[in-house]
C-alpha cells in the first residue's frame, strides 16, 4: 500500500476511480442480464392463463392443468389457491382470467363486476362428520337431527340416549362433546350450515346458512381451514367436526355414517356425493344447493365448487383459450378428479356446464 501522505491521497483517488469503473461495468452487466430476461419470452413462448380462488379446487386443478400442459405445451395455466373470497375479489379486479369459488357469487358480488358473469360447476365435494372417540374407529351412525342438536349444543355427551339409540351395541363413553368448526369463512361451512338449516328449523331460524356463522354450542372451537379442523379433531378426544372428503380419506380419520332424507345411513364417498349431485341436473349459480337430497344412496352434505368467467373477455384471443380449457376441464378432465379423492361431475351436470360455457363469446 501507499507510504507517504501524497501517495495515500493518489492511491485513494485511483482506488475510488477503479471502483467507480467496476461499478459501471457491473451495472452494465446487470442491465444486459435484465434485458435478456425481459426478452426471454422467446424461450418461454407459452401463453399463460391465470386463475385464482378456492383452496378446495387447488389439488384437482393442479393435476388437471399439469396434464393439459403436457398435451398442449404452448399453454400453461397458473392457478393459485388464495381462497374463494380472494378468488371473487381478484376476478372482480380483473387481475385473473378466471376465478374459482366454493359458493357462487351472489347478486351483490355480481353487481360489483359491472359485466355479465358465467358461473360453471367444476367439481364436487362432500363434508364428512369426523370424530375422535378412543376405540371407535368405524361405524358411528348419526341422524340428521342428532347432528343438528350436537351443533346447537343440545346434545353435550357422547353417551346421550339419542346417540346411543342410533348405535346399539356401541360402547359410547361418558365423554363431553367438543364441537369443532371452521374459524375462517369457508365454502365447506356454507354447505354444512345449509344442511343443518334444511334438517333443523331451529338452526335455520337461530343460526342460518352462511360461509361463517355464530356457532351456538358452548363447547365450540374453531380451526383454520380443513387442515385446521382435521388437526383439532385428531388431537382432541371427544371432538366432532366437519371436514372435506379428501382430508378424511388422506388422513385416516374416523367419520360417521350420516342419515339422508330417504332414511338410509351413508358414508361420504365419491359415489354417494355424485349420487346427490345427479338428482339435480339443472343446477345453476342461482339454485345450487344439493344438501339433504332424497335418494337412497345420496350423501346429504354435498356441494359444488364453481369457476367464474366473464361472458365477454377483454382479450378475445385469451378468452377463446380460456373457453377451450374450461370445456376440457368440465368434461374430459373430470375422471382426473378421482385420482386426488375428488368427485367427478355426473354426466347431466357436465352437459349443464357446457350449456353455460356456450354463452361465452
Amino acid at each position, binding site marked *: 500500500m501507499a507510504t507517504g501522505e501524497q501517495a495515500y491521497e493518489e492511491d485513494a483517488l485511483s*482506488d475510488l476511480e477503479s471502483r467507480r469503473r467496476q461499478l459501471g461495468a457491473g451495472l452494465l452487466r446487470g442491465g444486459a442480464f435484465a434485458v435478456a430476461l*425481459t426478452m426471454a419470452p422467446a424461450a418461454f413462448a407459452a401463453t399463460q392463463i391465470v386463475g385464482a380462488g378456492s383452496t378446495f379446487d387447488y*389439488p384437482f386443478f*393442479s393435476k388437471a392443468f399439469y396434464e393439459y400442459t403436457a398435451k398442449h405445451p404452448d399453454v400453461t395455466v397458473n392457478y*393459485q*389457491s388464495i381462497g374463494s373470497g*380472494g378468488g371473487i375479489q381478484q376476478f372482480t379486479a380483473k387481475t385473473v382470467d378466471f376465478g374459482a369459488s366454493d359458493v357462487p357469487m351472489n347478486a351483490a358480488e355480481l353487481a360489483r363486476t359491472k359485466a355479465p358473469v358465467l358461473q360453471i360447476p367444476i367439481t364436487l365435494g362432500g363434508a364428512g362428520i369426523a370424530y375422535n372417540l378412543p376405540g371407535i374407529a368405524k361405524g358411528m351412525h348419526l341422524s340428521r337431527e342428532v347432528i343438528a342438536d350436537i351443533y346447537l349444543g343440545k346434545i353435550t355427551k357422547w353417551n346421550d340416549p339419542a346417540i346411543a339409540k342410533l348405535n346399539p351395541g356401541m360402547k359410547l363413553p361418558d365423554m363431553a362433546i367438543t364441537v369443532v368448526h371452521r374459524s375462517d369463512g369457508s365454502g365447506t361451512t356454507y354447505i354444512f350450515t345449509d344442511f343443518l338449516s334444511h334438517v333443523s328449523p331451529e338452526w335455520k331460524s337461530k343460526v342460518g346458512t352462511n360461509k361463517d356463522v355464530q356457532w351456538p354450542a358452548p363447547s365450540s372451537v374453531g380451526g383454520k381451514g380443513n*387442515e385446521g379442523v382435521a388437526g383439532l379433531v385428531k388431537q382432541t378426544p371427544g371432538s366432532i367436526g366437519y371436514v372435506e372428503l*379428501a382430508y378424511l380419506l388422506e388422513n385416516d380419520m374416523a367419520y360417521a355414517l350420516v342419515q339422508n332424507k330417504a332414511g338410509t345411513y351413508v358414508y361420504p364417498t365419491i359415489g354417494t356425493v355424485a349420487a346427490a349431485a345427479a338428482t339435480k341436473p339443472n343446477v345453476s349459480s342461482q339454485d345450487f344447493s344439493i344438501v339433504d337430497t332424497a335418494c337412497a344412496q345420496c350423501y346429504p352434505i354435498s356441494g359444488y365448487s364453481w369457476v367464474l368467467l366473464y361472458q365477454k373477455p377483454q382479450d378475445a384471443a385469451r378468452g377463446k383459450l380460456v373457453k377451450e380449457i374450461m370445456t376440457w376441464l368440465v368434461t374430459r378432465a373430470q375422471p382426473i378428479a378421482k385420482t*386426488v379423492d375428488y368427485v367427478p361431475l355426473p354426466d347431466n351436470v357436465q352437459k349443464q356446464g357446457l350449456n353455460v360455457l356456450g354463452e361465452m363469446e
Partner: protein
Amino acid sequence: MSATSAAALFRRRRLKSVLWIGACGIFATAVAVILLLIMGYIVREGISAISIPFLTRLPRPTGISGGGVANGIVGTLIIVGIAALMAFPVGVLVGTYVAVYGHRRMSQWLSFLADVLAGVPSIAIGIYAYTLLVEPFRHFSAFSASFAFAVLMIPLVIRATEGAISIVPRELREAATALGAPEARVVLKILVVAARPGIITGLLLSLARVTGETAPLLFTAFGSQYWELRPGQPMAELSLQIFTYAISPYADWHAQAWGGALILILAVFVLSVLARLSVLFGREGRGHGGTA
C-alpha cells in the same frame, strides 16, 4: 454491630446475584431449547424430502412423485435480489444521513418514520404493493413482491446503518475534519468505512427478515408451478409453495413442505452466520488499517 450488618448485606447481595444469574441462565436455556427443538423437528421432517430432483425439478401434482421446488428457490432469489437492489441504496443513504446529521429536524422525522414503517404489518405492505403495482396493471408480478419486500427492508437497513455509524468513535470524525478532509470524504471514507461491518450485518439481517415472508406475496408474486424468470410475470416463491402444500390433505405434499421449510431455515441460518462473521472479520480488518 456494623461488621455483622455489612456481612449480612454482602450475603444478601450475593444471594440476589446468584438468583438473578440463575434465572437468566434458566430462561436463556429455555429459549435455546425451544429453538433447537423447532430446528431439530424441521430437520427431522425435512431431510428425507431433500434430494437432487427436489432441488432441480418443477412442482408436480399430488400422487406424481419426483416433484421439486427449483422454481421456488430461483424465484425467491430473484424476488429478494431485486428487493435488495431497491432497499440497500435507499436504506444505507437515509441511515447515513440520519446518523451524520442526527441533530437536524429532517433526520429526526426520517428516524421516526422508519420506526413507524418498521411497525406496519407485512400483509398491509403486501396490499399496498398490490394496490400500487398489481391492480392498475391487472397483472401479478414478481416485481411487485420485490417492491413489498423492499418496503419491509428499508426501515431495517436505515436503523442498522444509523446504529453502525453512530458507534464510530467521535474522535475519528474530529481527527479527519481537523486534517482538513472535506465533509463528503469524512462521511464516505471514514464513517461509512469504519461502520461497514455493522452495515453489512444489517443488510444481511434484513435479507433474512424477508426470506420466508408469505403474507405480502399472496397478492403480488402470486406463485407459479412453472419456470418463470421474468420479474414482470407471476413467479414461484418458496414460502408460498410451502404454504400451499402445508394446507393440502396429501402426505406427499406435506413432506415437500417440510423439505422446503428446511431449505428456508438453512438459507436464513447461513445469512445469520454471514452477518456474525462480517462483524468479526470487520473488526480485524479495521485493526490492520486496510481500506479495501
